[in-house]
């Protein structure tokens, strides 16, 4: 029985919080030092494990990752994903618990750490390689591969401060990816860079995966998680779930996101381009054939009642769009006042618009609803995740079977013949 590549056992990490961390300031320390030298000496030994001003960024995280497994860490912001990666990369020390990494670790928490803007691409390859743990000969050996992968060959002797951010990311990822790690820790670094290069990076990670290497991957892109990972761990408030299959993990993540969306619409975070204006979107009500405000059987009707308030002072010919997004954040449908009905409206003190969709042919999965108020092409206010709907199985095809949300976005009828 081989040992797992990563074993994480009851890792906890505490941070001291407080508005002004007075006990750590220079003056305070000097004062304490004069008043009570022994206590200050003891303070250096203290490990913040008790007290009110302690925040547990990680609170008992345990899991094991087998060799060759690609594990996705998912969770909302502040769930402790990045802290965990930092602990496993040995950047910060856990407050208690233990983790064992078996194999050479390469961690990519930020693209281009250690890059120096004044140095050229060539010089940075050597410097960054050394920082990531490669020897000079090893870098020399892989130099050509790194350059080729990064596609910055022409600018190799230009200081990286003159690089575009895309080139910068490409070069940095290339160096890290050629470390030949046995365990690769990747934070959401792929969020930068263009689509083509993201694909290339994902491809490189798949290569690493196929060579039986272990990858620990954090992303908010469920698409990347779904296409790369074999299992996921769902992190919530510093605690980890058990390892679970990707579908189930994404589901848990979305459920949590939806639970967090229990806020009334008027309190939800929004993007507003109207200066100093109170929220316009006030309420959304989802009507479904099932009578439940969330569950929509495939192919049945769904309706949205959107109430807007206090926007009499907003000028222009306004439009309202209701966007439906799938679990991977992809927009799958848009219901729009102007496109669907030729309707624009003026600001008012209060207004409720009703949208009725006779049939929603989406495949069974979770979907989120976005609201967008616009004047022509100018977005004025936007609320993402204003509501969530759950499209559930309904035997519309008459076969007792349906494509799932992973196999297809929509369920459309067709005929087959021999």
């Amino acid at each position, binding site marked *: 029985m081989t040992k797992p590549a990563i074993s994480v056992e009851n890792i906890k990490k505490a941070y001291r919080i407080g508005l002004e961390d007075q006990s750590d300031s220079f003056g305070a320390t000097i004062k304490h030092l004069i008043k009570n030298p022994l206590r200050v000496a003891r303070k250096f030994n203290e490990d913040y494990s008790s007290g009110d001003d302690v925040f547990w960024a990680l609170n008992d995280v345990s899991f094991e990752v087998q060799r060759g497994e690609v594990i996705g860490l998912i969770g909302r912001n502040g769930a402790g994903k990045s802290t965990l990666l930092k602990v496993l990369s040995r950047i910060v020390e856990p407050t208690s618990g233990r983790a*064992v990494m078996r194999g050479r670790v390469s961690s990519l928490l930020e693209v281009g750490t250690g890059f*120096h803007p004044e140095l050229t691409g060539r010089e940075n390859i050597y410097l960054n390689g050394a920082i990531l743990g490669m020897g000079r000969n090893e870098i020399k050996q892989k130099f050509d591969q790194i350059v080729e992968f990064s596609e910055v060959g022409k600018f190799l002797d230009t200081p990286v401060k003159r690089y575009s951010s895309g080139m910068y990311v490409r070069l940095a990822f290339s160096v890290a990816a050629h470390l030949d790690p046995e365990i690769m820790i990747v934070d959401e670094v792929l969020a930068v860079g263009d689509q083509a290069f993201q694909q290339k990076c994902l491809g490189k990670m798949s290569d690493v995966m196929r060579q039986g290497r272990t990858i620990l991957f954090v992303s908010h892109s469920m698409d990347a998680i779904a296409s790369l990972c074999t299992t996921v761990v769902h992190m919530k408030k510093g605690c980890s779930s058990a390892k679970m299959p990707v579908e189930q993990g994404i589901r848990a993540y979305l459920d949590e996101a939806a639970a967090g969306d229990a806020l009334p619409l008027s309190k939800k975070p929004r993007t507003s381009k109207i200066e100093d204006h109170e929220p316009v979107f006030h309420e959304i009500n989802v009507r479904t054939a099932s009578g439940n405000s969330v569950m929509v059987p495939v192919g049945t009707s769904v309706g949205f009642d959107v109430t807007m308030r206090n926007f009499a002072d907003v000028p222009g010919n306004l439009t309202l769009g209701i966007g439906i997004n799938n679990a991977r954040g992809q927009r799958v449908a848009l219901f729009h006042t102007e496109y669907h009905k030729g309707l624009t409206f003026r600001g008012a003190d209060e207004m409720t618009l009703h949208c009725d969709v006779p049939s929603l042919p989406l495949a069974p999965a979770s979907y989120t609803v976005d609201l967008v108020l616009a004047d022509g092409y100018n977005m004025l206010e936007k609320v993402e995740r204003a509501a969530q709907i759950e499209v559930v199985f309904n035997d519309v095809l008459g076969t007792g079977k349906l494509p799932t949300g992973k196999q297809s976005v929509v369920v459309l009828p067709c005929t087959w013949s021999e």
Partner: protein
Amino acid sequence: MSQASMSVTATENPVPEAVSSEKVYQETIIRPKKGWIGIDWKELITHRELLFFLVWRDVKVKYKQAMFGAAWAIVVPLASVLIYTVVGKFAGFANRTIGNTPYPIYIYSGLLPWLFLQSAINGGGMSLVNNQALLSKIYLPRIFIPSAMIGSSAVDLFMSSIIFTLMLTYYIISTGGAFMPSWQIIFVIPLTVLMVVAALGTAYLLSALTIMFRDLRFIIPFITQLGIWLTAVVYPQTIFTRAAKDEQGNTLLDAAGQVIYAVDYRPWLALNPFAGIVQGFRSAILGEPWQWLQLTSSIVLCSLLFVVGLFYFKRVERRFADIA
């Protein structure tokens, strides 16, 4: 014991061969460390090339954008020598030097070690703060960061010594051999070792303190400004003395021909660990009398500085990423 018995079964049993062909993975255990952490020498040795690259980066970056590039490594000490020579002539320090040492040489032999120590205090102290990304986004042996800073200062020191040697040669020739460094110049080598130990200790201590208490970034430049005066770098230590004179106003000499001092505050300089080093360089190069008290004290204080600096650094290292 159990290992021994295992190896016996291994030779009898063919199965363990499969086990031995399996790759052995290096194991890294991550857990909270308690107390004063020892130094992982093995890790430092395996990462030694990183230290080289960090030094190389610091040197390269320092002169990269400057139009005259590395020429500054030469111009800066030369300009300082010029300034302090002129000041010294006006202030009358120059009359207090011993023998027929040209005053610029006198100044340079003090500035040579001091400029190195100064960059250790300034650059070393700021090294962690200036490399926060390396602390918070990646793991590497952090002790390398201040060490590399000292390494790049040592490169400057080396360049500066070449210029100093050229200057010595020039004065030997131009004075027709009237000025000649003492044979004791070879003691510059152990003094340089002492100086590097002092610089490393200072850099470890100050860099760790600066990242914990940012106030120091304002205090440190002040320390070095004061230090050049408290270390007697640009004037002779004899200004802290008054020679004994007879009634005719002649300086009294002892049997060995050395000046007898009526007042001598120089022993107080022994409290400054750097004073012994700077004066040591002068004694070695110019043949001034050795200040044994200062030198002994410097050896003790600098060793202490190194040990305290290193242990304090290791002690707070685990919190760097949380604070940076």
